[in-house]
């Protein structure tokens, strides 16, 4: 065994005596430097790419989160409501359209003064599945003028509607028709439209007007 090993050692020794690489150290050194430079550039590119990717991934997430926070903190929902008023001889018909869900309660109030302090009639109806509602009010005194208000009031709403707009209307987006009011020491936000109900005097033609967010000036004949 030892002799075999000696022979193999001798064989390799003899064979290797004059085997020399033809490549020089300088060329290897230059290649090493080039490779090192490429690696350094690749490292920087990878670093920049990683940073860019991180920005691209993180930023939209942050924007999405911001949006979510805004929605959560504001959670505002716009209520659109409009309507027309038709004055008949003994009745007043109010036809309204809204984006409110079915079951939302709308209140109509007839009062003798613009501030709504002297209330003579108060009625509520529910919005149908199309968001429409209709009041048919009996004129208390046919010849008399009244102030009509048609309102969405949060405290009158069933629970399913309060869940959407808040128990005190805190989720209602502020707009031209929104208003705040106090009740039992709490502040509420609702939505109210106004119109004049013109009394029938002599041969006065039937009223056909629209509800508006502000009570208009009293019409002159």
């Amino acid at each position: 065994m030892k002799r075999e090993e000696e022979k193999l050692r001798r064989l390799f020794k003899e064979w290797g005596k004059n085997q020399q690489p033809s490549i020089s150290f300088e060329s290897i050194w230059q290649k090493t430097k080039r490779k090192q430079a490429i690696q350094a550039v690749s490292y920087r590119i990878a670093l920049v790419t990683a940073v860019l990717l991180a920005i691209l991934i993180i930023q939209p997430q942050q924007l999405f989160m911001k949006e979510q926070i805004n929605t959560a903190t504001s959670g505002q929902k716009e209520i659109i409501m409009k309507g027309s008023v038709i004055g008949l001889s003994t009745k007043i018909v109010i036809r309204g359209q809204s984006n409110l869900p079915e079951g939302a309660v709308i209140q109509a109030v007839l009062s003798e003064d613009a501030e709504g302090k002297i209330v003579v009639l108060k009625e509520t109806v529910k919005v149908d599945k199309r968001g429409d509602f209709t009041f048919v009010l009996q004129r208390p005194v046919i010849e008399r003028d009244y102030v009509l208000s048609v309102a969405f009031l949060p405290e009158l709403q069933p629970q399913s509607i309060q869940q959407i707009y808040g128990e005190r209307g805190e989720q209602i987006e502020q707009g031209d028709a929104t208003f705040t009011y106090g009740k039992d020491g709490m502040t509420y936000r609702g939505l109210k439209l106004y119109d004049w109900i013109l009394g029938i005097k002599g041969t006065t033609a039937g009223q056909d007007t629209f509800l508006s967010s502000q009570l208009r000036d009293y019409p002159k004949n």
Partner: protein
Amino acid sequence: MKKVEFQLSKHEAEQLFREYGEYVYRTALFLTRSRTHADDIVQETFVRIYTKFHTYDKAKPIKPWIYKITINVTRNYLKKQKIYNLFKAGKLTNDHSYDSLESVYLHKAELNELWELVNKLSQKSREILILHYYLELTLPEIAEILDVPLGTCKSRLHTALTQLRKKAKEEHLFYFMEDSV
């Protein structure tokens, strides 16, 4: 990602090349049987040594680390060559000059015959023979270089020697046979 480091000075790098360059070349030459390939392997091996020098454990001898890189580079090179030749529908390229007796400087007939036998062995057998008998690495060192258990390493050496004995007997190469001196 690890930052690229380069800790060797040019002088140190040159010293390493002078000390181990020929061994690396001869190992590659023996395994690839091609001077061109051997030169390529020397270049790739030393580029790797220089660029990966920061990964070398300074507490350990450098020789096995260098030869481990040599073996790995050679294996990768041979794999690439095999794929390349597959598409070329040819065999692994050999330098004709490598096989000629003059070029390998084995003037003694018996050594030439033994050399031919060694070259007929499998890749694994040739790897272990050159690592052990030429580079004079111990079996535990070879096991580490080849990433195999020590037992596998011993077994490979045993197989290589058995194959060589068998071939020597078949070829009537009495020079290598145990009972002839």
